[in-house]
Each structure stands twice: as structure tokens, then as C-alpha cells.
């Protein structure tokens, strides 16, 4: 059973080179293997979620080396939930990429897609900070390839900015890891949690710098203002299925913040007191406001969606920065919602691009399949803007409810509610310009170079909608589950004792002779 944990990493890691080496000339075979791999990942993720649902924590020691010395993979409720979310998202995104033909517009889409999954799943499952860095790099280097998939000058240009920004982020991450190692002598998360708590009050300078650097790195990933500048152009220029998959990448940053700042630097730790409520919460509120104002200001549909992603990450971070079990539970509920909604909107924007050739927010003659696309955009926009009846509204209610006891409650309520209004206006304006005003301009010329989107593309978006509706209908069950996840995060004794006290292989110099 314990070996199951590493399978979500090993499976795509083997599938990707196989696709490159054995199937690089046959797009059909690539598609079959890629989809089969993702379906297997979903099965694995369901198995892992089921295995930890009774509160147990699974762990895997690589090469069986004992914990603080060897690398461990740990699967608790939070990790497995994120693994499941990633693999479900990946399936529909992959179906869309196949249906719309995006995967055949450049080389090695499926191999890069599998490497990307390997990096994301590894980041969720690892129990070691340096290993987290390595998996970040794996997911980043795959994302560089995916981001410039199918080429084009604008995309390459945005790709350069994206790569350079993330390289600086990686360098910061290494500086943070170096200072953490210099202060504590370990990089295992459970071991770190114990040692950081032991640092005396006068000697916290190094560890405080490390905590802030680490927060900056994760904030870059999560696109929190003022570190969000990489997101709009890279998400807007990336191929739509890739942008939809990237919807989970910002959540990797959110996950890392939840994990590290509940476990290693918990809110009641004296050394890093004030980091959450004094710095993270205002930054999150500003990103929420900036994101939604960006929705109103955007002149192209893809930029609009990218800014709505920033806004929704702001909402997630508002809930996270409360650092209470209620707040984290609300954040996790909203993370699932915003991943699905963001992916849906990016895929719909690709339908619009297929239908009329560009994404400018100007009135143009109606495109093919306009009724279906318009209907889906309407529902997707409702979800993202957080109107009833979909899960965005419930998530927002949960966040508002969780913030009730916080110091900045007035600010949280004011910004969450007014930014919702702004985003409703922004989405309504975009929708009416793109879909309604089109009918005033007469029918489209029949010989235009645009094509009707494929059926499989609609199936993929429909599947994501089904997930979103299920997330709404079973909101009570999901929220109950995220509440247990959050409670477990604040009482991580099982995790700690399991990782640190289970005996593993140790190097014994006498035995070697």
C-alpha cells in the first residue's frame, strides 16, 4: 500500500519519455497513452483519497532511508485532495486539447503534459522542502515548453518574460532554502517544524528572513500582488488548454503556503508573528481588488480571464491568511471551485477564438456555434464572478463567514463584496459585447476561415461544468471534508510522529566494514 504514493509521480515520469521515444511520430498513439495515463492517475488519486479518508497518513521513504536524512513523500488528506483535483482537471483539459487539435499544432505536447503533471503531483506529495524545489522546477520547465507550444512571436515573447520571472523566483527559493538549512540543519518539513519551534527568541533573525523569502517565492507562484505581473500576459498568450491546466499551478503556490505556514511556521510561532495577518491578508485583499478591476479594464477576453484568476487567487489567499481551521476549509472549497471555473473560462475563450479568429472585446458578426458558446460563457462567468446558484457564491459566503472574527473583517467584507460587483460588471460587459451585440451586425460571411469547434471540445467543457455543478450540489459534503482536512492541518501530530519516528535505514559505519 505504501508504494502507491509514489505511483502518481512515477507513472507520468515513465509515460512522458515513452511518448517521446516510442510514439513521437504517431499523434494517435500519443493521445491514447496520454489519456490512459491520466485516467489511471484519477484512479490512483481516488484510491489515495479513500486510503487517507479515515485520518491516517501515508508516507513513503525513498530508498528506505530514515526520515530527516532521506526524502519522504507524505500523503495526508490535503495532498490527496489536491492530487485528485489535478488529475480530474488534467483529464478534461487533455480531452479538450485533443478535441480542438491543439496537441497536434506543435511537437511533444503530450510528453510535456505528462512531465507537467509529474511536477505538480510531486509538489503536492513531497514532505521535503528541497524536494519541493525540485518538483517546482520540473513543473516549471515543462510549463515553459507548454507555454510556447505551437510557437508564434507574441507567445515566445510572453514566454521569455514568464521564464525569466520564474527563474528569479527559483533563485529566491534557493536563497530561502540555504538560509533555512543554515539555521536548522534540516530540510525535512516535519523535522523543520520541530527545530524551528526550538530556536531561541534572540536568534530568530535568520529564520525570519528565510520565512519571508519563502513566502515571497510561494506568492510569486500564487500570483499575489505585487508579484502577479507575470500572470496576465503568460496566461493570455499560452495555448488555451495549457492556460486551463495552469489554473492549478497558482494553486500549487497556495498549497505550499498552507503546508509550510501551518506546519513549519504556524501562526502562533513567536518568530514569524504578524507575517500572516499584517502582510499576507492586506496583500491578498489588494490582489482581489486588482484582479477584479483588471477584469473590468481588460480589452481582450483572455486577459480578462487571466485577471479573474488573479482575483480568485486573492480570494483564496484572504481565506488562507486567516490561518484558522474555518478559513483554510473555506480556502480549500474555493480552490476547487476557482480551479474548475478558471479552466472552464479559458477553454471557452478558445471556443470564441476558434469561432471568430480573435479575442478582442469588440462587436463582430456572430460566430459559428454562438448560442452554445454564449450559454457556456454565461454559466462560467456566473461561477467565476460568484453569483448564486453556483459554487463561487457558496465559496464566497464561506470566506466571508470565516473572516467574521478577524481584525480586518470590515475590510474583508467591503473588498470581497465590492470586487464581486466589479467583476459582475466586467463579465457582463464582456459577454454582451462578444455575444449579444454580434447579432446586430448581421450574419457572418460563410467563407470565413473559422471552423466550428469539435464535439470532443464541448464534451470536455461539459465535463468540467458537471464537476462544478457537483461541487455546488454536494457543497455540504465537500465543505465537511475540507473542514476535516483543515482540522488535520492544525493537529499534525500523526504526520509528525509518523515521519520522524518510524524507523528506516540508517548508515552504520561499523556495518560497512
Amino acid at each position, binding site marked *: 500500500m505504501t508504494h502507491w504514493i509514489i505511483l502518481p509521480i512515477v507513472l507520468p515520469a515513465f509515460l512522458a519519455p515513452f511518448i517521446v521515444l516510442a510514439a513521437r511520430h504517431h499523434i494517435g498513439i500519443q493521445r491514447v497513452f496520454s489519456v490512459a495515463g491520466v485516467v489511471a492517475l484519477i484512479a490512483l488519486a481516488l484510491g489515495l483519497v479513500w486510503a487517507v479518508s479515515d485520518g491516517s497518513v501515508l508516507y513513503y521513504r525513498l530508498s528506505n532511508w530514515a526520515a530527516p536524512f532521506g526524502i519522504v513523500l507524505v500523503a495526508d488528506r490535503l495532498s490527496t485532495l489536491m492530487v485528485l483535483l489535478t488529475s480530474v482537471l488534467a483529464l478534461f483539459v487533455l480531452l479538450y486539447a485533443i478535441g480542438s487539435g491543439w496537441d497536434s499544432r506543435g511537437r511533444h505536447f503530450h510528453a510535456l503534459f505528462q512531465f507537467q503533471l509529474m511536477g505538480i503531483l510531486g509538489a503536492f506529495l513531497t514532505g521535503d522542502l*528541497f524536494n519541493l524545489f*525540485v518538483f517546482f*522546477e520540473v513543473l*516549471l*520547465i515543462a510549463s*515553459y515548453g507548454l507555454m*510556447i507550444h505551437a*510557437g*508564434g*512571436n507574441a507567445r*515566445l*515573447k510572453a*514566454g*521569455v*518574460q514568464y*521564464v*525569466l520571472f520564474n*527563474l*528569479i523566483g*527559483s*533563485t529566491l527559493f*534557493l*536563497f530561502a*532554502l*540555504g*538560509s533555512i*538549512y*543554515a539555521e536548522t*540543519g534540516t*530540510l525535512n518539513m516535519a523535522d523543520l517544524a520541530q527545530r524551528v519551534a526550538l530556536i531561541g527568541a534572540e536568534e530568530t533573525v535568520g529564520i525570519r528572513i528565510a520565512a519571508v523569502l519563502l513566502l515571497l517565492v510561494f506568492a510569486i507562484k500564487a500570483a499575489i500582488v505585487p508579484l502577479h505581473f507575470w500572470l496576465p*500576459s503568460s496566461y493570455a498568450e499560452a495555448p488555451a488548454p495549457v492556460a486551463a491546466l495552469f489554473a492549478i499551478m497558482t494553486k500549487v503556490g497556495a498549497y505550499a503556503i498552507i503546508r509550510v505556514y501551518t506546519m513549519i511556521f504556524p501562526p502562533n510561532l513567536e518568530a514569524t508573528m504578524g507575517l500572516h495577518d499584517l502582510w499576507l491578508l492586506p496583500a491578498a485583499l489588494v490582489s482581489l481588488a486588482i484582479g477584479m478591476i483588471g477584469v473590468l479594464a481588460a480589452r481582450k477576453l483572455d486577459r480578462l480571464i487571466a485577471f479573474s484568476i488573479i482575483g480568485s487567487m486573492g480570494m483564496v489567499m484572504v481565506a488562507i491568511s486567516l490561518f484558522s481551521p474555518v478559513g483554510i476549509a473555506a480556502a480549500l472549497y474555493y480552490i476547487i471551485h476557482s480551479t474548475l471555473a478558471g479552466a472552464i473560462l479559458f477553454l471557452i475563450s478558445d471556443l470564441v477564438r476558434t469561432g471568430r479568429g480573435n479575442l478582442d472585446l469588440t462587436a463582430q458578426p456572430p460566430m459559428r456555434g454562438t448560442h452554445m458558446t454564449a450559454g457556456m460563457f454565461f454559466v462560467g462567468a456566473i461561477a467565476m464572478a460568484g453569483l448564486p446558484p453556483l459554487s463561487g457564491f457558496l465559496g464566497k459566503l464561506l470566506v466571508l463567514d470565516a473572516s467574521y472574527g478577524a481584525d480586518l473583517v470590515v475590510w474583508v467584507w467591503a473588498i470581497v463584496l465590492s470586487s464581486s460587483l466589479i467583476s459582475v460588471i466586467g463579465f457582463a460587459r464582456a459577454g454582451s459585447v462578444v455575444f449579444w451585440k454580434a447579432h446586430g451586425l448581421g450574419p457572418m460571411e460563410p467563407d470565413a476561415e473559422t471552423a466550428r469547434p469539435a464535439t470532443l471540445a464541448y464534451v470536455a467543457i461539459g465535463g468540467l461544468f458537471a464537476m462544478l455543478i457537483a461541487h455546488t450540489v454536494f457543497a455540504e459534503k465537500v465543505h465537511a471534508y475540507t473542514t476535516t482536512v483543515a482540522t488535520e492541518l492544525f493537529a499534525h501530530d500523526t504526520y509528525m510522529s509518523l515521519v520522524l519516528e518510524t524507523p528506516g535505514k540508517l*548508515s552504520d*559505519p561499523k556495518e560497512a566494514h
Partner: protein
Amino acid sequence: MELLVASAIGVLTTAGIYLVLRLRTFPVILGMSLLTYAVNIFLFASGRLTIGAPPILQDGVTTYTDPVPQALVLTAIVISFGMTAVVVMISLGAYLGSDDDHVDDQPEATGSEERS
């Protein structure tokens, strides 16, 4: 020794940040390389500075150097090497495609004039 290592990290980081803040891809990539060199030396220093001591257990040796930072640095070197290669290729593609090596977005009017 401490002064030498500390000032090496400081000078490399300063030069790296200065170059990263330039707006053309070539100096930015050079700056990124300098920053990765700085961080590699920094990682070495995180295991305390020891001269001439082995990292692996041996008979008759009492002082050891910490082997973990060396492993970390090795990983970091490999990763930054790969990343630099990727960014050079992508920015070369972007430069050859649009005949413009600015990292930031140029105002649209001037950009289109140059190309036409």
C-alpha cells in the same frame, strides 16, 4: 575565508540584480547566471565553511564537512544549467521572430512601425 565568501556572494548578487534590471534579454540572462552562481556559493556556506575535510565517513578522521549542501548545490547547478539553456533558446526564438530583444512589452505603436 568568511570575508572572501561573503563578499563573493554579495558582489555576484549585486551585479546579477543590476543586470537583471536591464531591459534587454542578453544582460538579463547574464544577470540570471550571476545570481545562480551567487546562490550556489550561498548554499555551500549554509553548511558552514570547512577547509580540507572529507564529507564521507572515513577511518581516522575526526572533522567532517556537511555533505548535504554539496548535494543541494549539485542539484541546483544542474537545474540552473538546464534552465539557462531553455531561456537562451526561447529568447533567441523570440528575438529572431520579432527582431526585438526587449524583455518588457513595448508600446504597440512603435513596435509595429519597427516591423513594417
